[in-house]
């Protein structure tokens, strides 16, 4: 890849803070509103995404469980995080063969007009220890084991893929134990790497991974190094920029290695033990990294553990984008999220049909494996309405949400589970098919346009998804991923709405006040997720890959019991992936 084409980016990235607009030192770490803009120079429409917002994570390049049509229908999918490492299984990696103005978008099916692709070599949520990176290569993990990627190769891959943003390719400092790394050493080491990546892509399309581990001095030193003027060969590489920071669009924080460095053993993607919210320890580290740097650039955090942590990082650090790994992971294990921000006023009674309650708080979602949902025909979330209901007929319409939205009933969940839409078109396979699927008349179409809510079909019920989960049907996870992304997207819309509202206006608690109300309302612990994971493992063991072998080992009646009861397995006992594909048709 030494002869890789020189990069020819077809988009340029900019980020504007809309509130606060001036960055005094007091507001440097406060909550903020922003707009991330991609200007496409190839004629495709520009793309603007509001922050705070979510970044959808991917596995092997795609959003897990979503077919193309479902993915297109999920408006929450805007920022997309793409680890490249699985593509190293083919030489050369196949996305680099695609060609055209947006090879990565095209290959993976992300419309450039809708999706901002953040391409990293490694999966930021991967906590696995890899062999150390060398002077000229980076270690990455693919299905066929560890692959060494030279910096030239990576540069070439990025150029051939034309993603929208590229985090600096690795975070080796974070994997190392915290100091004793003398600041000078960390400087020189990181400078080299950063310079390489900066030169490899459009200067403004690079995000820097903020290194320094759990050491505040190391993080500060790394950050300061970005703003120091460069001299000699380094300066030549980044000309006409005076400092590395001038060439970067924003900063990323990978919370998984950071939590590991802090010694917290939080399970991947899910909240840690209830009484040890580690945001308190994270926030100072993030602030140490940001303090020496301009406050106007994008801040992205990977692998937040919960909405509680997201709110604290918005409030205490001013992070702009968070990945949705925990919400997507909840869909893998059968949890339908059910929470809103800001919490409606007054807080609705925690009656039947509401999520589990612990100590007066309610859970963030429903473990739909639980038998309590076997004949619960209500929609997935109490806190969001189904598309086919209007305010008058909604059972929850007695809830009064804060007046921010100007509405006195919960917002509609737009996902394909809560607001399924009848097909807009049916593929015609013969000239006679119109007899089966009569074309819509103009009058029908007008009626649909006038009353879009009425055109929604009834929502999929908890009972149906409970059934799909226990029968190991993949449709359950497709519906839950779309729902959970929609719930998280609505949560961020709520965050932005609160931040946009006039401080101290009537019925407003202010952002900090709303965060406190949220924390008081919703359980932060992972109880519901742990219970779901245990039941998921039970069903997967009874019906998933390897089932036949296990059945042979047992006698038949015992198998039948396992199958029906979905016995509970302690968390962490299973190693099977949630998307194991099985076969139960006859």
């Amino acid at each position, binding site marked *: 890849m030494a002869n890789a084409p020189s990069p020819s980016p077809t988009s340029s990235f900019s980020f504007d803070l809309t509130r606060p607009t001036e960055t005094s030192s007091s507001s440097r770490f406060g909550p903020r509103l922003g707009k991330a803009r991609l200007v496409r120079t190839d004629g495709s429409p520009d793309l603007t995404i509001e922050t705070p917002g979510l970044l959808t994570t991917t596995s092997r*390049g*795609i959003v*897990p469980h979503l077919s193309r049509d479902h993915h297109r229908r999920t408006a929450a999918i805007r920022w997309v995080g793409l680890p490249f490492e699985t593509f190293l299984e083919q030489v050369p990696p196949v996305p680099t063969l695609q060609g055209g103005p947006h090879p990565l978008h095209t290959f993976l099916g992300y419309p450039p007009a809708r999706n901002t692709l953040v391409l990293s070599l490694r999966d930021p949520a991967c906590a696995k220890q890899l062999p150390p990176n060398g002077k000229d290569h980076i270690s990455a993990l693919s299905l066929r084991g560890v692959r060494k990627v030279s910096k030239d190769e990576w540069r070439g891959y990025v150029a051939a893929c034309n993603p929208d943003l590229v985090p600096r390719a690795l975070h080796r400092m974070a994997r190392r134990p915290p100091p004793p790394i003398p600041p000078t050493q960390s400087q020189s080491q990181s400078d080299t790497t950063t310079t390489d990546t900066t030169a490899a892509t459009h200067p403004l399309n690079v995000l820097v991974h903020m290194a320094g581990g759990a050491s505040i001095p190391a993080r500060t030193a790394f950050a300061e190094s970005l703003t120091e003027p460069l001299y000699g060969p380094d300066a030549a590489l980044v000309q006409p920029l005076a400092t590395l920071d001038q060439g970067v669009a924003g900063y990323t924080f990978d919370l998984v290695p950071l939590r590991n460095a802090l010694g917290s053993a939080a399970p991947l993607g899910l909240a840690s033990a209830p009484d040890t919210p580690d945001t308190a320890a994270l926030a100072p580290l993030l602030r140490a990294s940001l303090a020496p740097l301009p406050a106007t650039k994008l801040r992205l955090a990977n692998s937040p553990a919960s909405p509680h942590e997201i709110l604290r990082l918005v409030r205490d650090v001013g992070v702009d984008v968070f990945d949705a790994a925990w919400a997507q992971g909840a869909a893998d294990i059968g949890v339908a999220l059910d929470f809103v921000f800001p919490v409606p006023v007054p807080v609705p009674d925690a009656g039947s049909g509401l999520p589990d309650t612990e100590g007066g708080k309610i859970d963030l979602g429903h473990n739909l494996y639980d038998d309590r949902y076997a004949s619960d025909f209500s929609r997935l979330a109490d806190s969001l309405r189904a598309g086919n209901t209007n305010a008058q007929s909604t059972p929850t319409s007695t809830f009064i949400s804060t007046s921010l939205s100007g509405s006195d009933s919960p917002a509609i969940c737009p996902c394909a589970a809560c607001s399924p839409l009848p097909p807009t078109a049916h593929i015609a396979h013969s000239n006679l098919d119109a007899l089966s699927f009569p074309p819509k008349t103009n009058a029908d179409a007008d009626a649909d346009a006038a009353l879009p809510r009425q055109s929604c079909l009834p929502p999929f019920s908890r009972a149906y998804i409970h059934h799909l989960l226990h*029968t190991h049907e993949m*449709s359950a996870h497709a519906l839950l991923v779309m729902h959970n992304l929609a719930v998280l997207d609505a949560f961020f819309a709520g965050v932005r709405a609160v931040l946009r509202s006039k401080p101290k206006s009537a019925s407003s608690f202010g952002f900090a006040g709303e965060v406190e109300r949220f924390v008081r309302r919703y359980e932060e612990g992972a109880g519901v997720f742990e219970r779901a994971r245990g039941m998921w493992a039970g069903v997967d063991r009874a019906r998933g890959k390897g089932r036949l072998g296990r059945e042979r080992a047992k006698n038949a009646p015992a198998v039948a019991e396992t199958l029906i009861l979905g016995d509970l397995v302690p968390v962490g006992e299973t190693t099977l992936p949630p998307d194991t594909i099985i076969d139960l048709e006859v």
Partner: protein
Amino acid sequence: MEFEVLARCPTTKARVCKMTLAHGVTMLPTFMPVATQAAIKGLTAQQVESLGVSLILNNTYHLNLRPGIKILEDAGGAHRFQGWTRNLLTDSGGFQLVSLSKFTTITEEGALFASPFTGEPTMLTPEESISIQHTIGADIIMQLDDVVSTLTIGPRVEEAMERSVRWLDRCIAHHDASGKKGVQNLFAIVQGGIDVSLRDRCLDEMIKRRDGVAGYAIGGLSGGEAKDTFWRIIKQCADRLPDDRPRYAMGIGFAEDLLVCVALGVDMADCVFPTRTARFGIALTFTGPINLKLQKHAKDLNPIDKDCPCPTCSDGVSRALLSHIITLETAASHAVTQHNIAFQARLMGRARDAIMAGAFPAYLRKFFKDYYGDVGYPEWIVNALRSVGVDLLEGEDVEVVQGDGAKWEYSDKS
């Protein structure tokens, strides 16, 4: 049910029919995808419908175990439960009792099996099967039949055939008394194994009961019998079944089998093959199935079929991307499942158009040339189509080969 024959092929026995059920019109011949557990694997009801599918199948045995009849009743039926607004067919549960349960004993009263819940002996009678199907609420319901393995020979086959006739009487009586006849339609299932005389006797008896049934299925095939036997039994049944009733070949899903059945006069078929094989990375095409796991597809940036209107192909999902995710990501299964269902629907939709246009023999010749031109025509297909007046070899220089002719992409060399 309203059933109307719109066109007949002047050469073969193929026909186009319009079948109107409580949940709309389904044009025949058609292929029915199987939603065993109230979901086509990985898809939603809306996705399936958008593929141009208007009739799917649920399995009574499975739905009776989970979620159970009580929940389906509370949900307002299986349509409502799974969000499917089009036509639905349920089997009787008899086949799965035999194929899935080691402990099933058939008595005259019904099928005695060990409950998977409690292990206790449980009886599924013809009346009970119909009642369960009434609760599920499918537009087409099937009689409980006494199913024996296709390859069984001897007196057991005759006993099963005769019992299936007696059970049909009980199903008809129970269905007639239920008051559901206006919205749900009972189909009989012709049994008799691979014995021509038993099939004839079963046909005699079941045709006598035509006033009690809305349609007929041909059961007991697709269970390992020789293809030459398979098509002859299909032909024997299709030739004799009443012209004014739909004919349903159970468990048929390979493209070549489907078109032979249509030529012999079959209107409907179902099989898990297209959806199951999708999950293992097999995509169906008009030149034969392709195995996406093979290295030869790993860098192929073309879609499975550039002319295919399915969401996967029309959105440009490449073979290379599918190869990268197949069997590792559920989304790959979804993508290939959508494609394969659309493929089956295209195959049958083109047959409908060809029959309407009086060009079905030409369609058969083109399909089989594209499909088998490279490897030779299986002899059984040549014979089956000759029996209805189409000679695949006429004007073609294609070799005739032995074997069942099922196409498969085994290795990178093929």
